């Protein structure tokens, strides 16, 4: 007779078969049988967080920095509802997560039992798919399918809800058999004809631009390599979304910087004026497009994406190519090399006028700011952090707000998977737990969370996790005592009525660090900033770095609302003659 396994054992056997090495979680009544089995599976290490949202973001950080799915294990009721923010965040930013939740025993479902909630009902709109396991014989199949759904196609979170009695019941373990297709859902749907058309457009273009996004990073490191090859082969300019940063080296001359609401002048103007836009793995998000009726009015648009529902969702495109970016780029490069051997040479002349124009936009130096010798400008703090860490392989996470945009503008990423930020959902409190997850995946690497003091307080309790597992994460807080982005919008749109955006009672972050058992460092002046950053980098323990920055600084450039890409607001240097009045008084 074959050996019988309990539901709890089967959970871990499946995790083992899926090569899971770390899970993030928090125990509770309805998952106790699973926690009881943990000791028998040495290959799986459990990271105890301080809040289930932290488990979710840590799993996200782990997944985005390693390319493997992140796994979290939480209890029923509040455990599940606390994880919802992280699941939604992962859904918006296409991060593969497998969330295992405990549930009250089957016979109590629907009775409003203690710590019961309709977990699959609540998480249905924020997962790719979810399952309530009602029969122990389905458990192993569901677990394996969960990993498959999370990691194939456009990645995303899934949830498996396991009632407590199912965790105790016993059955045989069925080995995993990979199905070829999931209900007929294939992902590479492009043909050579599509590629030929793309090459035709590329060779005709006089004002082309690559617009790349997080899909390139999700497609794996190879996709980034292929992208670089294609960009160098064509000589075209390239801009990236927030999520795509790192798939092309930021210090390369062909890179125009980030585009969108707080993107560079040259990137947004190039998007507006181009005649060929090649979108690779981005989704025409509303922060990118600005006014949709006037979005890049004169261009042919190509959209390469693995998710067919991304095509024509916000912007109508001329050539959709549905497929994995790695395979599309491989075919494109192959065809390009075959048909146009000396493409880059013959092409240089054709797009030289375009590059001249771009250089003109570039000379506006839209990311410039007015420096100061008395107070630390937030942009300066990030520039210094970059200069002092660029020789290491650094992983950056962020919270959400001004500091996030400044990090995206001023920190230069040269490799994929080094930049973890909450873009779609914009979750304040993402960065600290994400840094925990990144450090777990890369124990020897430098991991910095560029934070705001308001965001970081939302998940500050995870410092305790970092201390417990000796994770030397660096929490680099740009402290302006305001919810900076809220304050900026209030200044520009709401007549400087700073309603509730000032935090009147902040903790002393240095003392707080000490209370958590880690190191606190404070920098007050530009003069001492470098030394303090070096001190932080030389500390082999978790650090909270309290960087006191200019409280009034705004994040520029910026596209005001109802405006297309070519009507940007530049920084204070430029603003004297362009005050925001009337129609422009709204943001996109």
């Amino acid at each position, binding site marked *: 007779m074959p050996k019988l396994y309990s539901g709890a054992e089967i959970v871990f056997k499946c995790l083992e078969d899926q090569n899971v090495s770390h899970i993030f979680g928090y125990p509770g009544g309805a998952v106790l049988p699973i926690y009881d089995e943990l000791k028998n599976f040495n290959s799986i290490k459990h990271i105890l967080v301080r809040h289930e949202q932290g488990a979710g973001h840590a799993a996200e950080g782990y997944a985005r920095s390693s390319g493997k799915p992140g796994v979290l294990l939480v209890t029923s009721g509040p455990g599940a509802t606390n994880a919802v923010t992280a699941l939604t965040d992962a859904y918006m930013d296409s991060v593969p997560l497998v969330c295992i939740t405990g549930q009250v025993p089957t016979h109590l479902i629907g009775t409003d039992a203690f710590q019961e909630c309709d977990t*699959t*009902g609540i998480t*249905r*709109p924020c997962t*790719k*798919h979810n399952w*309530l396991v*009602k029969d122990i014989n389905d458990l192993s199949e569901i677990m394996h399918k969960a990993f498959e*759904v999370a990691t194939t196609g456009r990645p995303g979170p899934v949830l498996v809800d396991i009632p407590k009695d199912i965790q105790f019941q016993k059955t045989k373990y069925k080995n995993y058999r990979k199905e070829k297709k*999931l*209900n*007929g*859902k294939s992902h590479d749907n492009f043909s050579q004809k599509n590629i030929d058309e793309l090459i035709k457009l590329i060779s005709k273009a006089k004002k082309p631009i690559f617009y790349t996004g997080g899909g390139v990073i999700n497609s794996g490191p190879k996709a980034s390599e292929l992208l670089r090859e294609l960009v160098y082969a064509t000589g075209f300019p390239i801009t990236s979304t927030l999520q795509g940063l790192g798939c092309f080296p930021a210090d390369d001359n062909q890179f125009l910087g980030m585009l969108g609401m707080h993107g560079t002048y040259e990137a947004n103007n190039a998007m507006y004026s181009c005649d060929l836009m090649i979108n690779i793995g981005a989704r025409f998000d*509303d922060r990118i*497009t*600005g*006014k*949709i*009726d006037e979005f890049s009015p004169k261009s042919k648009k190509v959209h390469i994406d693995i*998710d*067919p*529902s991304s*095509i*024509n*969702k916000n912007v*109508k495109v001329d050539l959709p190519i549905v497929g994995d970016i790695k395979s599309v780029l491989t075919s494109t490069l192959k065809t390009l090399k075959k048909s146009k051997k000396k493409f880059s040479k013959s092409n240089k002349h054709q797009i030289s006028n375009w590059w001249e124009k771009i250089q003109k936009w570039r000379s506006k130096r839209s990311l410039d700011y007015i420096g100061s010798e008395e107070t630390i400008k937030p942009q300066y703090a990030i520039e210094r952090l970059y200069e002092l860490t660029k020789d290491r392989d650094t992983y950056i996470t962020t919270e959400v707000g001004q500091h996030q945009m400044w990090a995206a503008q001023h920190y230069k990423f040269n490799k994929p998977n080094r930049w973890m930020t909450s873009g779609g959902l914009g979750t304040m409190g993402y960065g600290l737990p994400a840094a925990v997850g990144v450090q777990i995946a890369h124990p020897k690497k430098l991991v910095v969370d560029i934070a705001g003091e308001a965001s970081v307080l939302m998940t500050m309790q995870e410092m305790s996790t970092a201390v417990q597992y000796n994770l030397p994460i660096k929490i680099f807080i740009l402290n302006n005592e305001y919810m900076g982005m809220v304050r900026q*919008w209030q200044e520009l*749109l*709401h007549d400087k009525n700073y309603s509730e955006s000032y935090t009147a009672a902040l903790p002393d972050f240095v003392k707080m660090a000490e209370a958590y058992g880690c190191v606190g460092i404070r920098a007050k002046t530009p003069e001492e900033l470098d030394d303090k950053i070096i001190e932080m980098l030389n500390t082999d323990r978790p650090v909270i770095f309290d960087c006191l920055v200019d409280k009034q600084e705004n994040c520029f450039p910026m596209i005001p*609302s*109802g405006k297309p890409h070519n009507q940007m607001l530049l920084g204070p240097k430029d603003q004297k003659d362009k005050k925001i009045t*009337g*129609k422009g*008084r*709204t*943001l*996109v």
Partner: protein
Amino acid sequence: MANSKSAYSIAGKKQKNDTHIIVVWVDNEAGVLARVVGLFSGRGYNIESLAVAEVDQKENISRITIVTTGTPQVIDQIKLQLKKLVPIHKVADFKREDKNVIFKEMALFKFVANNEKLTKAFNACKNYNPVVLDKTKKSKVIQITALRREIDKMSKNLTKFGLVSVSRTGAVAMTRGSDVFK
């Protein structure tokens, strides 16, 4: 509102809405209808009517027929979003004007009236395959099958013959001829 103090863009021009009938074949499992309906409500799509039933007991397949309205772009999104759901096998989309597709809804009418009016009521239903399901001296329950707008019209016109209650299904659809939607 060009001057809305919003962090979001202002709604663009609205396009014309068309009525479409979307047919989906799904695994008949717990929560599958909620997934489909939740997708519609969550993304702000309309549902005018809905009909669901298992059609293949061996394979455990249900067929859901949804009547919806939307711009061509929205209809495309509906189809593409539906196709992403794990338990969905295939999605068909028909325009209401499509001559190659049969659409039918069923309605039950209850009349309470005198004999003369009840007879008139039955005669008025003649074009829509009326079947008398229940009959007393004072009342009749009549079943008809027809198009949505025909039933709309009928239920309005029949009040004068003592119509007191209407129960109706969502539309179901089938292609004409020997072709089967794959």
